[in-house]
């Protein structure tokens, strides 16, 4: 569909629907700080480059969210994308791409 830049957002939304849905505010993706957008972009590109599926990533994300619930005072987007980084590292480790 969308040439060059990986799967469309709709595909990602569909893959992550429910508990692992991307943080939004009235439809717009919420990036409180630039690193959160970078984290999302890294995930999309890594999955594309490694051929890992969104289902595989989602499993890691579910586990990461469970292990690290938001700390007091932490925003939902910060907690979500922190878990996202955990999940991405776990996926890379699983595939032998990270120590």
């Amino acid at each position, binding site marked *: 569909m*969308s040439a*060059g*830049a*990986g799967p*469309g*957002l*709709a595909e*990602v*939304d*569909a893959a992550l*629907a429910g508990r692992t*849905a991307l943080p*939004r505010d*009235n*439809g*717009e*993706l919420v*990036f*409180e*700080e*630039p*690193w*959160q*957008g*970078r*984290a*999302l*972009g*890294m995930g*999309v*590109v*890594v999955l594309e*480059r*490694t051929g890992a599926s969104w289902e595989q990533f989602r499993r890691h994300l579910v586990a990461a969210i469970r292990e690290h619930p938001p700390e007091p005072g*932490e*925003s939902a987007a*910060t907690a979500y*994308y*922190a878990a996202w*980084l955990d999940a*991405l*590292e776990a996926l890379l480790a699983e595939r032998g*791409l*990270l120590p």
Partner: protein
Amino acid sequence: MSTEHGHHHPRPDSQVALRARALEALLAEKGLVAADAIDAVVELYERDVGPQNGAKVVARAWTDPAYRERLLEDGTKAIAELGFGGAEGDNVVAVANTPTVHNVVVCTLCSCYPWPVLGLPPTWYKSPPYRARMVAEPRAVLGEFGLELPDEVEIRVWDSSAEVRYLVVPMRPAGTDGLTEEALSALVTRDCMIGTAVPQAGSR
């Protein structure tokens, strides 16, 4: 909500920002991910939410009377059948246009919008004049959008809220009998589902 980011000294969560940067550097080093590839995705995703999901819902309603019935009865559930939905799209109510009733949607308080089916709201939807005038003089505002409705057509204005968001199901245009569901969905523009336009058989 928590937008106290005005101060510039480092916050505790900059720890996680460093972690993100370190991971990105590592991925670049391994040749897995280039910075501009990430830029492209972020840029695309910040914009890439369109009304195509809603158009599919409408086209299905046009071609499948049983689906149409379910859609008008419980919009959220029928929309979920096609795989669309999300936390904020939770209560979508579909309202159908008929030869005597035209529906149009506004959010007088802010800019509530059924984004899982329509994507991001257009700028004018959020503008104070649209929000105020669509309620006070809908016929005149629709005229400014180029939509002249006969006097006998009743205009119903639906005010969205955080709890309930509306999707207009326009009438299927005449002369589209032979079209596939996919071709039909291409006729359904965003404005048709807000109610500021009606589908044209020859459009697009």
